[in-house]
Protein backbone atom coordinates (compact mmCIF):
# COMPACT_ATOMS: atom_id res chain seq x y z
CA UNK A 1 0.00 0.00 0.00
CA UNK A 2 1.32 3.41 -1.00
CA UNK A 3 -0.24 4.82 2.13
CA UNK A 4 2.12 2.74 4.29
CA UNK A 5 5.32 4.28 2.94
CA UNK A 6 6.98 7.13 4.72
CA UNK A 7 9.97 9.33 3.96
CA UNK A 8 12.14 10.52 6.81
CA UNK A 9 14.55 13.38 6.16
CA UNK A 10 17.10 14.14 8.86
CA UNK A 11 19.58 17.01 8.64
CA UNK A 12 22.02 18.85 10.86
CA UNK A 13 25.54 18.79 12.22
CA UNK A 14 27.32 15.47 11.70
CA UNK A 15 28.09 13.46 14.83
CA UNK A 16 28.61 9.89 15.99
CA UNK A 17 25.55 7.68 16.39
CA UNK A 18 22.94 9.45 14.27
CA UNK A 19 22.00 6.43 12.16
CA UNK A 20 22.15 4.14 15.20
CA UNK A 21 19.77 6.32 17.21
CA UNK A 22 17.27 6.70 14.37
CA UNK A 23 17.24 3.07 13.30
CA UNK A 24 16.88 1.91 16.92
CA UNK A 25 13.71 3.98 17.17
CA UNK A 26 12.47 2.62 13.86
CA UNK A 27 13.04 -0.96 15.00
CA UNK A 28 11.24 -0.24 18.26
CA UNK A 29 8.24 1.08 16.34
CA UNK A 30 8.42 -1.76 13.79
CA UNK A 31 9.11 0.44 10.81
CA UNK A 32 10.79 -1.56 8.04
CA UNK A 33 13.62 0.28 6.27
CA UNK A 34 13.41 -0.10 2.49
CA UNK A 35 16.07 2.36 1.35
CA UNK A 36 18.58 4.75 2.92
CA UNK A 37 20.66 7.53 1.36
CA UNK A 38 22.98 9.91 3.09
CA UNK A 39 25.14 12.77 2.00
CA UNK A 40 26.93 15.92 3.15
CA UNK A 41 25.33 19.12 1.82
CA UNK A 42 26.86 22.52 2.49
CA UNK A 43 28.70 21.03 5.45
CA UNK A 44 25.60 19.41 6.94
CA UNK A 45 24.80 15.75 7.26
CA UNK A 46 21.58 14.88 5.43
CA UNK A 47 19.94 11.48 5.53
CA UNK A 48 16.88 10.22 3.64
CA UNK A 49 15.10 7.07 4.64
CA UNK A 50 12.24 5.25 2.94
CA UNK A 51 10.29 3.18 5.44
CA UNK A 52 7.19 1.01 5.54
CA UNK A 53 4.79 1.18 8.46
CA UNK A 54 2.64 -1.68 7.13
CA UNK A 55 3.83 -4.12 9.80
CA UNK A 56 3.80 -1.61 12.64
CA UNK A 57 1.27 -1.76 15.49
CA UNK A 58 1.64 1.99 15.92
CA UNK A 59 -0.22 4.76 14.10
CA UNK A 60 1.53 7.21 11.78
CA UNK A 61 1.11 9.89 14.42
CA UNK A 62 2.69 7.81 17.20
CA UNK A 63 5.64 6.98 14.98
CA UNK A 64 6.06 10.57 13.86
CA UNK A 65 5.91 11.91 17.42
CA UNK A 66 8.57 9.39 18.51
CA UNK A 67 10.84 10.34 15.60
CA UNK A 68 10.41 14.07 16.28
CA UNK A 69 11.69 13.37 19.79
CA UNK A 70 14.70 11.58 18.32
CA UNK A 71 15.33 14.66 16.17
CA UNK A 72 15.19 16.84 19.27
CA UNK A 73 17.62 14.56 21.15
CA UNK A 74 20.06 14.63 18.25
CA UNK A 75 19.51 18.39 17.85
CA UNK A 76 18.74 17.82 14.20
CA UNK A 77 15.86 18.81 11.93
CA UNK A 78 13.64 15.87 11.08
CA UNK A 79 10.75 15.66 8.61
CA UNK A 80 8.44 12.64 8.60
CA UNK A 81 6.02 12.58 5.68
CA UNK A 82 3.87 10.09 3.84
CA UNK A 83 5.63 9.27 0.60
CA UNK A 84 2.66 10.03 -1.63
CA UNK A 85 3.30 13.76 -1.56
CA UNK A 86 6.60 13.23 -3.38
CA UNK A 87 5.14 10.72 -5.84
CA UNK A 88 2.30 13.07 -6.79
CA UNK A 89 4.40 16.18 -7.06
CA UNK A 90 7.26 14.81 -9.11
CA UNK A 91 5.58 12.35 -11.49
CA UNK A 92 3.22 12.91 -14.40
Amino acid at each position, binding site marked *: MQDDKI*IITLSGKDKIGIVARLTTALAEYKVNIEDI*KQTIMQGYF*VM*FLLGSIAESDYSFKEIKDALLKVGEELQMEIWVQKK*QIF*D*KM*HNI
Partner: protein
Amino acid sequence: MRFINSESIIETINMIKVQHLDIRTVTLALSLRDCADRDVRVVGEKIYEKIIKYASKLVEYANEIEDEYSIPIINKRIAVTPISLVGESCDEYDYVYLAKMLDKAAESVGVNFIGGFGALVEKGCTRGDIALIESIPEALAQTKFICSSINLASSKSGINMDAVSKMGQIIKETAELTATEDGIGAAKLVCFCNAPGDNPFMAGAFHGIGEPECALNVGVSGPGVVSAAIESLPEGTSFDELANKIKQTAYKITTTGELIGREMAQKLKIPFGVIDLSLAPTPEEGDSVAGIFQAMGLEHAGAHGTTAALAMLNDAVKKGGIMASSHVGGLSGAFIPVSEDAGMIEAASKGYLTFDKLEAMTSVCSVGLDMIAIPGDTPVETISSIIADEMAIGMINKKTTAVRVIPVPGKKVGDKAVYGGLLGEAPVMSVNNLSSAGFIRRGGRIPAPIHSLNN
Protein backbone atom coordinates in the same frame (compact mmCIF):
# COMPACT_ATOMS: atom_id res chain seq x y z
CA MET B 1 9.39 6.70 -6.79
CA ARG B 2 10.28 3.16 -5.63
CA PHE B 3 13.53 4.30 -4.09
CA ILE B 4 14.72 7.56 -2.68
CA ASN B 5 15.04 10.53 -5.03
CA SER B 6 16.82 12.95 -2.75
CA GLU B 7 16.53 15.92 -5.13
CA SER B 8 12.74 15.62 -5.23
CA ILE B 9 12.57 15.35 -1.46
CA ILE B 10 14.73 18.42 -0.93
CA GLU B 11 12.76 20.38 -3.51
CA THR B 12 9.45 19.56 -1.82
CA ILE B 13 10.71 20.38 1.67
CA ASN B 14 12.16 23.67 0.41
CA MET B 15 8.87 24.58 -1.23
CA ILE B 16 7.07 24.10 2.07
CA LYS B 17 9.71 25.42 4.45
CA VAL B 18 11.27 28.31 2.55
CA GLN B 19 8.86 29.23 -0.23
CA HIS B 20 5.62 29.11 1.79
CA LEU B 21 3.85 26.40 -0.22
CA ASP B 22 0.65 25.64 1.61
CA ILE B 23 -2.87 24.42 1.23
CA ARG B 24 -4.60 27.74 1.64
CA THR B 25 -8.00 26.27 2.35
CA VAL B 26 -10.02 23.11 2.56
CA THR B 27 -13.60 24.21 2.08
CA LEU B 28 -16.58 22.01 2.76
CA ALA B 29 -19.28 23.06 0.31
CA LEU B 30 -22.75 22.21 1.56
CA SER B 31 -26.25 22.63 0.19
CA LEU B 32 -28.72 24.14 2.64
CA ARG B 33 -31.65 24.05 0.22
CA ASP B 34 -33.39 21.42 2.33
CA CYS B 35 -33.35 23.75 5.34
CA ALA B 36 -36.13 25.96 3.96
CA ASP B 37 -39.26 26.36 6.08
CA ARG B 38 -42.04 28.88 6.68
CA ASP B 39 -40.75 29.52 10.19
CA VAL B 40 -37.40 31.31 10.24
CA ARG B 41 -36.54 29.80 13.66
CA VAL B 42 -36.93 26.31 12.17
CA VAL B 43 -34.69 27.32 9.24
CA GLY B 44 -32.03 28.50 11.69
CA GLU B 45 -32.17 25.26 13.69
CA LYS B 46 -31.99 23.13 10.54
CA ILE B 47 -29.00 25.10 9.23
CA TYR B 48 -27.16 24.69 12.52
CA GLU B 49 -27.86 20.96 12.76
CA LYS B 50 -26.88 20.27 9.15
CA ILE B 51 -23.57 22.10 9.43
CA ILE B 52 -22.72 20.29 12.66
CA LYS B 53 -23.62 16.95 11.05
CA TYR B 54 -21.37 17.43 8.02
CA ALA B 55 -18.53 19.58 9.35
CA SER B 56 -17.89 18.44 12.93
CA LYS B 57 -14.78 16.48 11.88
CA LEU B 58 -13.50 18.94 9.25
CA VAL B 59 -10.87 20.61 11.42
CA GLU B 60 -9.73 17.38 13.10
CA TYR B 61 -9.20 15.61 9.76
CA ALA B 62 -7.44 18.63 8.25
CA ASN B 63 -5.03 18.65 11.19
CA GLU B 64 -4.37 14.93 10.75
CA ILE B 65 -3.57 15.33 7.05
CA GLU B 66 -1.42 18.37 7.73
CA ASP B 67 0.62 16.17 10.07
CA GLU B 68 0.86 13.24 7.66
CA TYR B 69 2.31 15.28 4.81
CA SER B 70 3.91 18.09 6.82
CA ILE B 71 2.21 20.67 4.64
CA PRO B 72 0.34 23.50 6.38
CA ILE B 73 -3.42 23.67 5.83
CA ILE B 74 -4.01 27.31 6.68
CA ASN B 75 -7.79 27.62 6.63
CA LYS B 76 -10.71 25.31 7.20
CA ARG B 77 -13.91 26.77 5.83
CA ILE B 78 -17.50 26.10 4.89
CA ALA B 79 -19.39 27.38 1.85
CA VAL B 80 -23.17 27.14 1.74
CA THR B 81 -26.08 27.75 -0.61
CA PRO B 82 -26.72 31.49 -1.07
CA ILE B 83 -28.71 32.20 2.06
CA SER B 84 -31.24 34.41 0.26
CA LEU B 85 -32.59 31.19 -1.28
CA VAL B 86 -32.71 29.31 2.02
CA GLY B 87 -34.46 32.05 3.99
CA GLU B 88 -36.84 33.17 1.26
CA SER B 89 -39.62 30.71 2.07
CA CYS B 90 -40.14 32.21 5.55
CA ASP B 91 -43.35 34.06 6.34
CA GLU B 92 -41.28 36.73 8.03
CA TYR B 93 -37.72 37.37 6.96
CA ASP B 94 -34.93 37.55 9.52
CA TYR B 95 -31.63 37.16 7.73
CA VAL B 96 -29.62 38.60 10.60
CA TYR B 97 -30.87 35.72 12.77
CA LEU B 98 -29.84 33.23 10.06
CA ALA B 99 -26.40 34.88 9.92
CA LYS B 100 -26.08 34.42 13.67
CA MET B 101 -27.02 30.74 13.40
CA LEU B 102 -24.43 30.24 10.65
CA ASP B 103 -21.90 32.03 12.83
CA LYS B 104 -22.75 29.84 15.83
CA ALA B 105 -22.35 26.70 13.70
CA ALA B 106 -19.02 27.94 12.32
CA GLU B 107 -17.75 28.59 15.82
CA SER B 108 -18.93 25.18 17.05
CA VAL B 109 -17.06 23.27 14.35
CA GLY B 110 -14.00 25.52 14.62
CA VAL B 111 -13.74 26.79 11.04
CA ASN B 112 -12.12 30.12 10.12
CA PHE B 113 -14.93 31.41 7.92
CA ILE B 114 -18.31 30.44 6.52
CA GLY B 115 -19.24 31.85 3.12
CA GLY B 116 -22.52 32.06 1.28
CA PHE B 117 -24.40 34.79 3.09
CA GLY B 118 -25.38 36.12 -0.29
CA ALA B 119 -27.63 36.26 -3.31
CA LEU B 120 -27.47 35.78 -7.08
CA VAL B 121 -29.16 38.84 -8.56
CA GLU B 122 -27.51 39.39 -11.95
CA LYS B 123 -30.86 39.72 -13.68
CA GLY B 124 -33.03 40.94 -10.86
CA CYS B 125 -33.89 40.63 -7.19
CA THR B 126 -36.59 38.61 -5.49
CA ARG B 127 -38.09 39.84 -2.22
CA GLY B 128 -35.79 37.51 -0.32
CA ASP B 129 -32.73 38.80 -2.20
CA ILE B 130 -33.57 42.39 -1.28
CA ALA B 131 -34.16 41.48 2.37
CA LEU B 132 -30.84 39.66 2.51
CA ILE B 133 -28.90 42.48 0.87
CA GLU B 134 -30.40 45.00 3.26
CA SER B 135 -29.44 42.82 6.23
CA ILE B 136 -25.76 42.59 5.25
CA PRO B 137 -24.37 45.54 7.25
CA GLU B 138 -25.95 44.37 10.49
CA ALA B 139 -25.24 40.69 9.80
CA LEU B 140 -21.54 41.34 9.23
CA ALA B 141 -21.30 43.65 12.23
CA GLN B 142 -22.90 41.13 14.57
CA THR B 143 -21.02 38.02 13.46
CA LYS B 144 -17.41 36.96 13.37
CA PHE B 145 -17.09 34.20 10.79
CA ILE B 146 -19.59 35.17 8.09
CA CYS B 147 -18.54 36.17 4.58
CA SER B 148 -20.96 37.66 2.12
CA SER B 149 -20.99 37.72 -1.67
CA ILE B 150 -23.49 39.05 -4.17
CA ASN B 151 -23.43 38.21 -7.88
CA LEU B 152 -24.49 41.39 -9.67
CA ALA B 153 -23.70 40.64 -13.28
CA SER B 154 -22.94 37.92 -15.81
CA SER B 155 -21.93 37.68 -19.45
CA LYS B 156 -25.29 36.05 -20.21
CA SER B 157 -27.52 38.44 -18.27
CA GLY B 158 -25.81 41.81 -18.26
CA ILE B 159 -25.42 44.04 -15.19
CA ASN B 160 -28.15 44.62 -12.63
CA MET B 161 -27.51 48.33 -12.11
CA ASP B 162 -30.24 48.67 -9.47
CA ALA B 163 -28.37 46.14 -7.37
CA VAL B 164 -25.02 47.76 -8.19
CA SER B 165 -26.38 51.07 -6.93
CA LYS B 166 -27.68 49.39 -3.78
CA MET B 167 -24.40 47.60 -3.09
CA GLY B 168 -22.45 50.88 -3.07
CA GLN B 169 -24.62 51.94 -0.16
CA ILE B 170 -24.45 48.54 1.56
CA ILE B 171 -20.63 48.50 1.40
CA LYS B 172 -20.48 51.95 2.93
CA GLU B 173 -22.93 51.06 5.73
CA THR B 174 -21.09 47.80 6.42
CA ALA B 175 -17.80 49.67 6.80
CA GLU B 176 -19.42 52.27 9.04
CA LEU B 177 -20.96 49.66 11.35
CA THR B 178 -17.49 48.18 11.87
CA ALA B 179 -15.72 51.56 12.04
CA THR B 180 -13.76 50.69 15.19
CA GLU B 181 -11.95 47.97 13.23
CA ASP B 182 -11.25 50.12 10.15
CA GLY B 183 -14.41 48.91 8.42
CA ILE B 184 -13.47 45.22 8.51
CA GLY B 185 -17.05 44.23 7.69
CA ALA B 186 -16.46 45.41 4.12
CA ALA B 187 -13.41 43.11 3.92
CA LYS B 188 -15.86 40.22 4.26
CA LEU B 189 -18.18 41.45 1.51
CA VAL B 190 -17.59 41.00 -2.20
CA CYS B 191 -19.54 41.85 -5.37
CA PHE B 192 -19.13 39.51 -8.34
CA CYS B 193 -19.63 39.23 -12.06
CA ASN B 194 -19.78 35.59 -13.27
CA ALA B 195 -19.29 34.22 -9.74
CA PRO B 196 -18.19 30.55 -9.76
CA GLY B 197 -20.28 28.26 -7.56
CA ASP B 198 -17.35 26.10 -6.48
CA ASN B 199 -14.86 28.71 -5.31
CA PRO B 200 -13.25 27.70 -2.00
CA PHE B 201 -11.71 31.14 -1.33
CA MET B 202 -13.21 33.83 0.85
CA ALA B 203 -14.92 36.20 0.89
CA GLY B 204 -16.56 34.86 -2.27
CA ALA B 205 -17.10 31.17 -1.48
CA PHE B 206 -20.64 29.85 -1.77
CA HIS B 207 -22.21 26.55 -2.82
CA GLY B 208 -23.70 27.13 -6.27
CA ILE B 209 -27.21 26.03 -7.15
CA GLY B 210 -26.04 23.44 -9.71
CA GLU B 211 -23.70 21.82 -7.21
CA PRO B 212 -24.24 18.46 -5.46
CA GLU B 213 -25.43 17.95 -1.87
CA CYS B 214 -21.89 18.49 -0.62
CA ALA B 215 -18.31 18.46 -1.84
CA LEU B 216 -14.83 19.14 -0.60
CA ASN B 217 -13.08 21.92 -2.54
CA VAL B 218 -9.45 22.81 -2.06
CA GLY B 219 -7.53 26.03 -2.64
CA VAL B 220 -3.78 25.81 -2.97
CA SER B 221 -1.34 28.63 -3.11
CA GLY B 222 2.30 29.31 -3.69
CA PRO B 223 3.39 32.69 -5.05
CA GLY B 224 6.73 32.16 -3.30
CA VAL B 225 7.27 28.88 -5.12
CA VAL B 226 6.61 30.55 -8.48
CA SER B 227 8.95 33.45 -7.61
CA ALA B 228 11.70 31.03 -6.63
CA ALA B 229 11.21 29.00 -9.82
CA ILE B 230 11.53 32.15 -11.95
CA GLU B 231 14.58 33.31 -10.00
CA SER B 232 16.23 29.92 -10.60
CA LEU B 233 16.29 30.60 -14.36
CA PRO B 234 19.31 32.35 -15.90
CA GLU B 235 18.89 36.12 -16.24
CA GLY B 236 17.29 37.10 -19.52
CA THR B 237 15.51 33.79 -20.05
CA SER B 238 12.85 34.30 -22.74
CA PHE B 239 9.10 34.43 -22.04
CA ASP B 240 8.68 31.08 -23.79
CA GLU B 241 10.83 29.32 -21.20
CA LEU B 242 9.47 31.48 -18.40
CA ALA B 243 5.90 30.43 -19.21
CA ASN B 244 6.93 26.77 -19.28
CA LYS B 245 8.65 27.03 -15.91
CA ILE B 246 5.53 28.59 -14.37
CA LYS B 247 3.39 25.81 -15.84
CA GLN B 248 5.65 23.12 -14.41
CA THR B 249 5.60 24.78 -11.01
CA ALA B 250 1.82 25.18 -11.08
CA TYR B 251 1.57 21.48 -11.91
CA LYS B 252 3.55 20.52 -8.84
CA ILE B 253 1.52 22.77 -6.57
CA THR B 254 -1.77 21.47 -7.97
CA THR B 255 -0.95 17.76 -7.66
CA THR B 256 -0.18 18.36 -4.00
CA GLY B 257 -3.50 20.12 -3.50
CA GLU B 258 -5.38 17.34 -5.23
CA LEU B 259 -3.76 14.72 -3.01
CA ILE B 260 -4.80 16.61 0.10
CA GLY B 261 -8.30 17.26 -1.28
CA ARG B 262 -8.93 13.63 -2.14
CA GLU B 263 -7.66 12.44 1.25
CA MET B 264 -9.87 14.97 3.03
CA ALA B 265 -12.91 14.00 0.96
CA GLN B 266 -12.27 10.31 1.68
CA LYS B 267 -12.01 10.91 5.41
CA LEU B 268 -15.18 13.01 5.43
CA LYS B 269 -16.91 10.42 3.18
CA ILE B 270 -18.05 13.10 0.74
CA PRO B 271 -17.17 13.67 -2.94
CA PHE B 272 -14.07 15.61 -3.94
CA GLY B 273 -15.19 18.74 -5.76
CA VAL B 274 -12.52 20.89 -7.38
CA ILE B 275 -9.07 22.16 -6.82
CA ASP B 276 -8.69 25.90 -7.16
CA LEU B 277 -5.13 26.70 -8.04
CA SER B 278 -4.83 30.33 -7.15
CA LEU B 279 -1.70 32.24 -6.36
CA ALA B 280 -3.07 33.78 -3.19
CA PRO B 281 -0.48 35.94 -1.46
CA THR B 282 -0.10 36.60 2.25
CA PRO B 283 1.47 39.60 3.95
CA GLU B 284 4.51 37.45 4.82
CA GLU B 285 7.80 38.21 3.09
CA GLY B 286 8.40 35.92 0.12
CA ASP B 287 4.72 35.04 -0.39
CA SER B 288 3.86 37.82 -2.78
CA VAL B 289 2.40 38.02 -6.28
CA ALA B 290 4.04 41.45 -6.61
CA GLY B 291 7.31 39.61 -5.91
CA ILE B 292 6.69 37.51 -9.03
CA PHE B 293 6.51 40.67 -11.15
CA GLN B 294 9.85 41.73 -9.72
CA ALA B 295 11.32 38.29 -10.43
CA MET B 296 10.13 38.74 -14.03
CA GLY B 297 12.16 41.93 -14.31
CA LEU B 298 9.80 44.78 -13.40
CA GLU B 299 11.11 47.29 -10.88
CA HIS B 300 7.89 46.96 -8.89
CA ALA B 301 4.20 46.13 -9.23
CA GLY B 302 2.56 49.00 -11.08
CA ALA B 303 5.34 49.55 -13.61
CA HIS B 304 4.34 49.52 -17.28
CA GLY B 305 4.42 45.85 -18.21
CA THR B 306 2.65 44.71 -15.04
CA THR B 307 -0.56 43.88 -16.92
CA ALA B 308 1.34 41.80 -19.48
CA ALA B 309 3.26 40.02 -16.72
CA LEU B 310 0.03 39.23 -14.89
CA ALA B 311 -1.67 38.00 -18.06
CA MET B 312 1.13 35.54 -18.76
CA LEU B 313 1.32 34.44 -15.14
CA ASN B 314 -2.43 33.87 -14.90
CA ASP B 315 -2.57 31.88 -18.11
CA ALA B 316 0.48 29.74 -17.33
CA VAL B 317 -0.85 28.95 -13.87
CA LYS B 318 -4.15 27.75 -15.35
CA LYS B 319 -2.39 25.62 -17.98
CA GLY B 320 -0.16 23.90 -15.42
CA GLY B 321 -3.07 23.36 -13.06
CA ILE B 322 -5.39 21.89 -15.69
CA MET B 323 -2.82 19.20 -16.51
CA ALA B 324 -2.53 18.21 -12.86
CA SER B 325 -6.13 17.52 -11.95
CA SER B 326 -9.31 16.27 -13.59
CA HIS B 327 -11.34 18.90 -11.79
CA VAL B 328 -9.89 22.36 -11.67
CA GLY B 329 -12.43 25.02 -10.78
CA GLY B 330 -13.15 28.02 -8.63
CA LEU B 331 -11.15 31.11 -9.46
CA SER B 332 -7.85 29.43 -10.48
CA GLY B 333 -5.35 32.12 -11.36
CA ALA B 334 -3.43 34.93 -9.72
CA PHE B 335 -4.98 37.07 -7.00
CA ILE B 336 -3.96 40.69 -6.61
CA PRO B 337 -5.32 41.77 -3.23
CA VAL B 338 -3.58 44.91 -2.03
CA SER B 339 -3.71 44.50 1.76
CA GLU B 340 -2.78 40.81 1.73
CA ASP B 341 0.43 41.08 -0.29
CA ALA B 342 3.57 42.67 1.17
CA GLY B 343 4.80 43.73 -2.28
CA MET B 344 1.47 45.24 -3.30
CA ILE B 345 1.23 47.12 0.01
CA GLU B 346 4.67 48.59 -0.60
CA ALA B 347 3.89 49.48 -4.23
CA ALA B 348 0.62 51.15 -3.24
CA SER B 349 2.21 53.01 -0.30
CA LYS B 350 4.95 54.40 -2.53
CA GLY B 351 2.45 55.48 -5.17
CA TYR B 352 3.75 53.03 -7.81
CA LEU B 353 0.45 51.23 -7.94
CA THR B 354 -2.68 53.29 -8.54
CA PHE B 355 -6.35 52.40 -8.46
CA ASP B 356 -6.54 52.80 -12.24
CA LYS B 357 -3.61 50.45 -12.83
CA LEU B 358 -5.23 47.90 -10.54
CA GLU B 359 -8.40 48.14 -12.60
CA ALA B 360 -6.42 47.48 -15.78
CA MET B 361 -4.77 44.48 -14.13
CA THR B 362 -8.15 43.02 -13.22
CA SER B 363 -8.93 42.54 -16.89
CA VAL B 364 -6.34 39.74 -16.93
CA CYS B 365 -6.17 38.50 -13.31
CA SER B 366 -8.38 35.80 -11.85
CA VAL B 367 -10.56 37.95 -9.61
CA GLY B 368 -10.66 41.72 -9.43
CA LEU B 369 -10.32 44.82 -7.29
CA ASP B 370 -9.49 43.13 -4.04
CA MET B 371 -8.88 44.39 -0.52
CA ILE B 372 -8.42 48.00 -1.52
CA ALA B 373 -8.87 50.64 1.16
CA ILE B 374 -10.40 53.87 -0.11
CA PRO B 375 -11.23 57.11 1.75
CA GLY B 376 -14.14 56.85 4.19
CA ASP B 377 -15.86 59.87 2.62
CA THR B 378 -15.97 58.32 -0.86
CA PRO B 379 -19.51 58.99 -2.17
CA VAL B 380 -21.81 55.97 -2.39
CA GLU B 381 -22.31 56.60 -6.12
CA THR B 382 -18.56 56.46 -6.67
CA ILE B 383 -18.37 53.07 -4.93
CA SER B 384 -21.27 51.86 -7.08
CA SER B 385 -19.49 53.11 -10.20
CA ILE B 386 -16.29 51.32 -9.23
CA ILE B 387 -18.42 48.16 -9.01
CA ALA B 388 -20.09 48.93 -12.37
CA ASP B 389 -16.72 49.32 -14.13
CA GLU B 390 -15.47 46.04 -12.72
CA MET B 391 -18.68 44.19 -13.59
CA ALA B 392 -18.36 45.52 -17.16
CA ILE B 393 -14.82 44.11 -17.47
CA GLY B 394 -16.07 40.68 -16.38
CA MET B 395 -19.21 40.76 -18.47
CA ILE B 396 -17.50 41.70 -21.73
CA ASN B 397 -14.44 39.47 -21.24
CA LYS B 398 -16.52 36.47 -20.05
CA LYS B 399 -14.49 36.14 -16.89
CA THR B 400 -15.02 36.37 -13.18
CA THR B 401 -14.43 39.80 -11.74
CA ALA B 402 -15.07 41.07 -8.26
CA VAL B 403 -14.93 44.13 -6.05
CA ARG B 404 -13.90 44.13 -2.41
CA VAL B 405 -13.20 47.73 -1.49
CA ILE B 406 -13.25 49.15 2.01
CA PRO B 407 -14.25 52.80 2.49
CA VAL B 408 -12.37 53.14 5.78
CA PRO B 409 -14.41 55.32 8.14
CA GLY B 410 -12.63 58.52 9.14
CA LYS B 411 -9.53 57.80 7.08
CA LYS B 412 -8.15 59.62 4.08
CA VAL B 413 -5.54 59.06 1.38
CA GLY B 414 -2.17 58.26 2.92
CA ASP B 415 -3.64 56.79 6.12
CA LYS B 416 -3.41 53.10 6.79
CA ALA B 417 -6.13 50.54 7.57
CA VAL B 418 -4.91 47.63 9.69
CA TYR B 419 -6.74 44.29 9.83
CA GLY B 420 -4.06 41.84 10.90
CA GLY B 421 -3.65 38.16 10.06
CA LEU B 422 -4.13 37.14 6.46
CA LEU B 423 -6.16 40.30 5.76
CA GLY B 424 -3.04 42.37 6.39
CA GLU B 425 -3.00 46.16 6.15
CA ALA B 426 -3.80 48.59 3.38
CA PRO B 427 -2.75 52.13 2.56
CA VAL B 428 -5.85 54.20 1.78
CA MET B 429 -5.72 54.78 -1.99
CA SER B 430 -7.10 57.71 -3.88
CA VAL B 431 -10.09 57.34 -6.17
CA ASN B 432 -11.24 59.67 -8.94
CA ASN B 433 -13.09 62.61 -7.39
CA LEU B 434 -15.35 63.33 -10.37
CA SER B 435 -19.01 62.63 -9.72
CA SER B 436 -20.70 59.53 -11.14
CA ALA B 437 -23.99 60.21 -9.38
CA GLY B 438 -26.06 60.98 -12.49
CA PHE B 439 -24.90 57.74 -14.10
CA ILE B 440 -25.77 55.58 -11.12
CA ARG B 441 -29.17 57.24 -10.54
CA ARG B 442 -30.45 55.92 -13.88
CA GLY B 443 -31.10 52.43 -12.47
CA GLY B 444 -32.30 49.46 -14.55
CA ARG B 445 -30.05 46.95 -16.23
CA ILE B 446 -27.15 47.16 -18.65
CA PRO B 447 -28.18 44.63 -21.32
CA ALA B 448 -26.26 41.42 -21.88
CA PRO B 449 -23.51 41.89 -24.45
CA ILE B 450 -23.39 40.43 -27.93
CA HIS B 451 -21.34 37.24 -28.05
CA SER B 452 -20.08 37.58 -31.58
CA LEU B 453 -18.23 40.26 -33.54
CA ASN B 454 -15.52 40.07 -30.89
CA ASN B 455 -13.23 42.99 -31.56
